[in-house]
């Protein structure tokens, strides 16, 4: 299946979304990413039972941390799909890209550019 999704999305593969840590998402934002999202299996179908549920909790936590720090929490999101849903994957990538475009660039990366 050849599917197109926005080229600005960089994929980081993990064995299970349960592997994604709060620090990974936070650091992505610290280093200037405009947004970050996790795509996990459908809830209730995790091979490791609750990896995607743990990820959801962590995403929720990161969203709160970002708000505390002074960034929009909604720059980080969680999506779920089943492994056979390529088109849904592409649709989520598009949705997230559009959503982030609305929010604008990460103010931290602008500050870094200004400092350089």
């Amino acid at each position, binding site marked *: 299946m050849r599917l197109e999704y926005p080229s600005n999305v960089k994929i980081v593969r993990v064995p299970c979304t349960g592997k994604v840590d709060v620090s990974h998402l*936070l*650091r992505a*934002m*610290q280093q200037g990413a405009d947004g970050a999202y996790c795509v996990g299996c459908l809830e209730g179908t995790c091979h490791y039972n609750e990896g995607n549920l743990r990820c959801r909790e962590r995403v929720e936590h990161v969203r709160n941390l970002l708000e505390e720090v002074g960034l929009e929490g909604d720059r980080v999101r969680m999506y779920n799909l089943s492994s056979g849903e390529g088109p849904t994957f592409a649709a989520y990538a598009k949705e997230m890209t559009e959503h982030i475009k609305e929010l604008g660039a990460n103010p*931290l990366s602008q500050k870094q550019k200004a400092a350089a």
Partner: protein
Amino acid sequence: MIVAQRKPFEEIMNMLKGYKKVLNVGCGTCVAVCLAGGEKEVTVLNTELDMARKLKDNPIKIDGITIERQCDREYLAELDSKVDDYEAVVSMACGVGVQFLAERFPQIPVYPMVDTSGLAANQAVGWYEERCRSCNQCVLGMTGGICPVTMCAKGIYNGPCGGTNNGSCEIDTEQPCAWFMIYERLERQGRLDNILELHAPVEWLDQTPRTLVQPGYKKVDPEDLV
């Protein structure tokens, strides 16, 4: 183990508002196990602080190091050559660790980054239940292994009080009555006579600073040998 909770971010930002170069010291023992102050949590806090201060156009340089145990001098030694490069040191250890840091480096301000909440057991990932308040007069032997100091809202030694309500404590129907649980367990073990024995009220041995020397470990004063 000792459990603690990260302090609210706003409180932390306030404590550090005057500093530009800070060292964050994590502890690899209890607070790492209870996910409050180990290496990972040091990284998360430092990342947050870095971002928040940059956004305020008041950057802070914050480094992190996690040592094996902050309540042990042996492990603090590795910080000796480092701390003087910083304006302040923050600690993610329990209150004991923070005090040990402050004592070893009296020349430098030390700030706590967690609130130490007690002695607890791990019930599930990230979930801790307090089980002991280190009263220094353990009564678990007479209470069937259930701690009335911790689990009873009044901490009484001769319960239940008049508020016991079909197994719940009067403070909340969701809160089991410790003395009801104690009764049930003692009954099962055929030891109900324990509950009839009156016990002297607690001496509040935990209200003054305590030191503990285990038998066989007392240091002999050379003067006493003469």
